[in-house]
């Protein structure tokens, strides 16, 4: 598997140097692997820190900026970052109003952020943690619990919006938790991804088959099926989502590409998702189509629904200015 890299060991470092070179509005500490918005800490503002394994770009570094994250901690590819990174990030963004950690529910991320929260508390930083576990491919409450995937974007954005408005840590945490609890995602792979360290695909997926219920780390899914049309995939996906949580409010919709699926296909898929939602009386309030929470060069797609009341919808619409999500600024 050919890759546009120098050496596998330096992929994350090289990417961070790239971010540093092209985003003057961010402070990128390449050696310590922390991406911080240039004006941090912002006075009287709760600091938002997230992070996780690399390979999901633009998540999380691409979501650092006004109206979203204050800092991101990228780990090695598909490997959660280490506590030192989160502690450093927390110190960089804490204005005295405290820090919220937004953590995707993977054993590694949870454990490392847990340790970081302890260490940060020892340094006198108030830390709250919200865990995202939105993947309905897995039964809730079983084993390691549900994985955190596309819902993370909505948590980071909506918590970021309310933090930007000056809300205290308790309130920011409450919004983040509410969003994290109500988001649902489901993903499908048509072709596996290849990690730089391994140099080849993380699993085999023969021609004519796809994986339903995949994660974002090259894990195989819960079920393998014969190839389906985009309409059939949309039906299976929306069924999985709506059976888990029939939203009685309008939803923000993320139609997300996993990395190698052309935007042309993704927009076609979006039209099928919209149809499938309509047939199940789910009302889309706003829709994003694009590669936001990826899995390197995996071919496939995921859909995330985030129910919103008027307040959350208003927060969604406030200005955001990050490398990957930007409007009103």
């Amino acid at each position, binding site marked *: 598997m050919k890759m546009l890299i120098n050496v596998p060991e330096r992929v994350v470092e090289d990417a961070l140097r790239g971010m540093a070179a092209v985003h003057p509005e961010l402070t990128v500490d390449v050696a310590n692997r922390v991406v911080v918005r240039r004006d941090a800490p912002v006075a009287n503002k709760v600091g938002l820190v997230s992070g996780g394994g690399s390979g999901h770009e633009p998540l999380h570094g691409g979501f650092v900026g006004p109206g979203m994250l204050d800092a991101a901690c990228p*780990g090695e590819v598909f490997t*959660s970052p*280490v506590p030192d990174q989160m502690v450093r990030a927390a110190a960089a963004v804490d204005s005295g109003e405290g820090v919220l950690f937004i953590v995707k529910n993977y054993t*590694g991320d949870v454990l490392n952020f847990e340790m970081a929260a302890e260490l940060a508390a020892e340094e006198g930083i108030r830390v709250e943690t919200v865990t995202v576990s939105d993947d309905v491919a897995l039964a809730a409450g079983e084993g390691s619990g549900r994985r955190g995937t596309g819902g993370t974007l909505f948590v980071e954005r909506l918590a970021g919006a309310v933090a930007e408005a000056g809300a205290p840590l308790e309130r920011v945490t409450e919004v983040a938790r509410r969003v994290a609890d109500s988001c649902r995602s489901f993903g499908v792979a048509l072709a596996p991804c290849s990690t730089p360290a391994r140099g080849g695909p993380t699993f085999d997926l023969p021609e004519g088959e796809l994986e339903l219920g995949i994660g974002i780390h090259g894990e195989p899914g819960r079920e393998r099926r014969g190839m389906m049309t985009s309409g059939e995939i949309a039906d299976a996906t929306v069924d999985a989502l709506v059976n888990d949580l029939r939203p009685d409010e309008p939803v923000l919709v993320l139609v997300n590409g996993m990395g190698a699926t052309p935007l042309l296909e993704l927009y076609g898929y979006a039209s099928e998702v919209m149809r499938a939602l309509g047939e199940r009386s789910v009302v889309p309030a706003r829709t994003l189509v694009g590669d936001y929470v990826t899995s390197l060069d995996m071919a496939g797609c995921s859909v995330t629904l985030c129910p919103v009341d008027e307040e959350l919808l208003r927060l969604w619409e406030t200005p955001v200015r990050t490398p990957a999500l930007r409007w009103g600024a």
Partner: protein
Amino acid sequence: MEPGTDRDEGTEPTLDADFFIRWLDAAAAAVARDADRLTELDAAIGDADHGSNLNRGFAAVTRRLTEKPPNAPGAVLTGAGRTLISSVGGASGPLYGTLLRRAGKELGDAPRVSRVQLAEALRSGVGAVAELGGAGGGDKTMLDALQPAVEGLTRSFGAAATAAEEGALATVPLRARRGRAAYLGDRSIGHQDPGAASSALLIGALADTATRAADDDGHRGNGADRV
């Protein structure tokens, strides 16, 4: 000849800081050698990074131990644990880090410890891993190699290595209930847990180091002294 297998407790050598350093160096070498195998195991039921994760971590441990070698077994283990936590990431970083840190703390600042003391310290470490990760035996994790290894170690280094190896192989038919492999449900069955495999490597390195120490001991009495 391996200490502890054919002598009684009283004559088995005690273990100093240097022994622990050589253990961790041997572990680092074993991890480097088997990194691809560990990553392959992780590819089957996880995310294909366990080998490179541990390799990165143990390389950092080796560097740190070379730069400033601690002079007590406990300090070697806590330092190595901290290094793993700061360099590995993933699930295995905090878990292995906690294992070694907790064991190191148990050993305190004694300049030499016995095999049985090490076994007890590791037992605490394994308990801390179980508590941190919420897993138990049979959940198809590193615990399935570590728990039997600790029991084995109360008998001998060789018994520890054998038990760890058997425990690791015994994860094959299990259905994962913790960690990334749990996402696969029944599809996790039929694959060896990568963390259990790496645990077997670490305990194997311990037994090898003890064997070598005993051999050296026969020749020039290096590192492990009689109590």
